[in-house]
């Protein structure tokens, strides 16, 4: 347990070494060192998981340990930001997922990025990302979470904008960073609120909590540690003493603001515009960052602060509502997209919606949703990463993202085809594979916590997911090659296939991991399948598959007829409900045109003008007095005498 800091530590040191020393020397070596570092870090993650569960056993809530921490930045007496590692069931789960997927993506990238001129730079940024993601996962307090949150944002910005010679990639990177940065604003204000009330509550309940937590953490608990924030006494203190803001309790406001940060990072509805554009980055980056790890950071943060979210009540309803809406919204759009990576991006959006709604439906009393969300996160990471990597292999072979350029690749890319099929089955929720189990858990959580609407939408979206996933499967793998590029597409090199196969295996068997046991939240441990929910879910999936088979496998262009039938509706959905255009309009016209430009003008003319006016005035005064000096003696004498007369009069008045 002591060496927990190695998991984020190794990628950090390898980032520094590779970035500063190895990259200039030899790019090849940089690639291998970076990948090796990730594999070592994965090994440590597994060993920690093993130690933890062997030590504390499964089936009950494992304690949250902070085995290693040091005092990083002391704001005030009890407000010290520490850097350390927090080990508890969900952080272990995340550590395992992140390290595995990251290692496999590193391996895959060696093949995918071979020959690219920015090869070394790519791996440095990938290592930076892995370090900041792992730092985020093991963060014991909310400030370290925010620090790594920003670092993750920056590394995603650098990686999306990797092909910096492509203006669209640069714009996408910029968009991603600014949108997430805007969301982090909410997160920052949430931290400020929690920090303030934490400090206010500390004198009263700090000592008790510190004493409780004595055994678990190596340094005294601070006001911003998760252990302190999530503690029921703190929640109670804030709910009772702090006033209400706009009708909501201060804790609720803080949690909603923090959720705004999570919505930004996990691309929930209002702030989802950056994820589809983020596909500009290289495909392994999309696989790692925009499918498996970074986007789930938001879900992880909500899970981490779940006790305070639950205590506050209303934030969980917000989470549930936003999750469900995004889930449906993204699934509908995914059905109409042509670029394979855009489809997968929207499917990620929809699956994230699933995780959020699972958390939203969970309550303090029956946290089944919390486990379901974590389980879905676990399984989704594998099959979504696999989907992206397979898509990468497709793009690598066909050199184009459009699914309409592909066709009949079954024979040309057999391994990719099989792994892609496994992943599609998993995501569609076909029984034996992992997707089925985790989606089933979510649906069960929705039902048990009496959320019928959420359950209905989830079920409908399950069908939709199956539909759009098999749509791209049939278009790209079945039928005959639609373009000459598809004709001589070639199978990906071995180094790319190994990760595909590994992920495929994980996607298939991940379902059997008794997540309830590990997270210790399922009571009585009956892990069996609940047929009354499983059957409708599988049925929805099968209907979806049948529908897409009917539309896209036949020779006749049935889907064209359907598209024309939907008419206007189809184009609206295809353009992603014009949300991007609205954002563009707001930023371009409202902010740049009506705020920034007038301020620049105002500053240049009014404020600057005032100073120049002041200068001109003194000049004018000088010029005004000039004519007094006419140069003629007589005027001077006239002035002199009238001056004398004036003073005599003055004196006269004074004396009399």
């Amino acid at each position, binding site marked *: 347990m002591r060496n927990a800091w190695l998991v984020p530590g190794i990628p950090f040191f390898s980032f520094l070494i590779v970035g500063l020393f190895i990259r200039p020397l030899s790019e090849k070596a940089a690639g291998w060192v970076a990948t090796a570092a990730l594999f070592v870090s994965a090994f440590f993650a597994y060993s920690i998981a093993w130690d933890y569960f062997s030590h504390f056993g499964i089936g009950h809530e494992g304690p949250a340990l902070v085995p290693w921490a040091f005092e990083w930045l002391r704001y005030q007496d009890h407000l010290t930001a520490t850097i350390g590692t927090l080990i508890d069931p969900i952080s272990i789960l995340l550590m395992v997922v992140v390290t595995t997927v990251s290692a496999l993506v590193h391996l895959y990238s060696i093949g995918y990025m071979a020959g690219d001129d920015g090869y070394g730079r790519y791996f440095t940024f990938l290592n930076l990302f892995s370090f900041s993601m792992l730092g985020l996962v093991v963060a014991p307090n909310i400030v370290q979470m925010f620090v790594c949150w920003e670092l993750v944002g920056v590394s995603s910005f650098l990686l999306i904008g990797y092909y910096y010679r492509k203006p669209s990639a640069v714009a996408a990177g910029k968009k991603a960073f600014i949108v997430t940065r805007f969301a982090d604003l909410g997160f920052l204000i949430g931290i400020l609120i929690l920090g303030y009330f934490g400090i206010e509550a500390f004198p009263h309940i700090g000592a008790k909590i510190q004493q409780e937590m004595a055994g678990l953490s190596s340094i005294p608990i601070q006001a911003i540690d998760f252990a302190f924030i999530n503690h029921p006494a703190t929640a109670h203190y804030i709910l009772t003493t702090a006033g209400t803001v706009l009708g909501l309790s201060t804790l609720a406001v803080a949690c909603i603001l923090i959720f705004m940060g999570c919505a930004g990072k996990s691309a929930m509805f209002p702030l989802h515009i950056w994820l589809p554009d983020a596909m500009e980055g290289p495909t392994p980056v999309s696989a790692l960052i925009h499918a498996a790890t970074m986007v789930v950071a938001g879900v992880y943060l909500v899970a981490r602060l779940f006790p305070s979210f639950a205590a506050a009540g209303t934030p969980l309803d917000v989470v549930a509502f936003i999750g469900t809406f995004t889930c449906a919204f993204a699934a509908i759009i995914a059905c109409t997209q042509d670029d394979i990576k855009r489809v997968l991006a929207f499917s990620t959006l929809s699956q994230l919606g699933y995780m959020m709604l699972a958390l939203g439906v969970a309550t303090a009393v029956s946290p089944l949703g919390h486990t379901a969300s974590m389980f879905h996160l676990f399984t989704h990471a594998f099959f979504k990463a696999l989907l992206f990597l397979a898509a990468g292999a497709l793009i690598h072979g066909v050199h184009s993202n459009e699914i309409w350029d592909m066709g009949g690749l079954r024979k040309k890319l057999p391994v990719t085809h099989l792994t892609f099929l496994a992943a599609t089955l998993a995501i569609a929720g076909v029984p034996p594979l992992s997707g089925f189990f985790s989606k089933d858990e979510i649906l069960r959580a929705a039902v048990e916590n009496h959320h019928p609407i959420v359950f209905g939408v989830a079920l409908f979206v399950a069908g939709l997911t199956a539909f759009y996933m098999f749509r791209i499967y049939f278009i790209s793998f079945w039928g005959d090659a639609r373009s000459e590029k598809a004709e001589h597409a070639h199978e990906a090199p071995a180094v790319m296939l190994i990760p595909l196969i590994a992920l495929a295996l994980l996607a298939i068997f991940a379902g059997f991991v008794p997540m309830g046991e590990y997270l210790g939240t399922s009571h009585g441990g009956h892990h069996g399948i609940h047929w009354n929910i499983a059957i409708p879910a599988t049925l929805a999936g099968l209907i979806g598959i049948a529908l897409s088979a009917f539309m896209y496998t036949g020779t006749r262009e049935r889907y064209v007829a359907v598209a024309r039938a939907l008419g206007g509706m189809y184009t609206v959905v295809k353009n992603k409900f014009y949300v991007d255009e609205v954002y563009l309009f707001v930023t371009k016209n409202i902010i740049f045109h009506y705020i920034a430009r007038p301020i620049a003008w105002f500053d240049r003319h009014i404020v600057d003008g005032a100073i120049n006016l002041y200068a001109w005035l003194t000049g004018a005064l000088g010029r005004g007095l*000039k*004519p007094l*000096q*006419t*140069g*003629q*003696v*007589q005027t001077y004498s*006239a002035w002199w005498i009238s001056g004398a007369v004036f003073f005599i009069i003055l004196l006269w008045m004074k004396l009399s």
Partner: protein
Amino acid sequence: MNELMTLTPGLYHWLLLTLLLFSVGLYGLLTRRNAVGVLLSTELMLNSAALNFVIFNRYMAPGFVDGSIMAIFIIAVAAAEVVVAMAIFVALLKLKKTADVTLMNELRG
């Protein structure tokens, strides 16, 4: 004010007279455009000042001669002043081809 009432010329009569002459001279000084005209007016003013000395001497210090001596000195100074003024005037005339004082304003601001 009431000393003026009597006809016989008292101190105030004289003072008013010289003051009037001085003011007329001043007016001439200010309005004359010709340099010589200005000189003439100054001569008038100097003369009225000398007159004043003699008046005060006569009315205020009959036994003394200081007033007259001062008058003599004023006349001497007036002479010197005219010589220098005319010399300058002649030089300026040659240079500026005009005697108009208002044109000689090189020293303006």
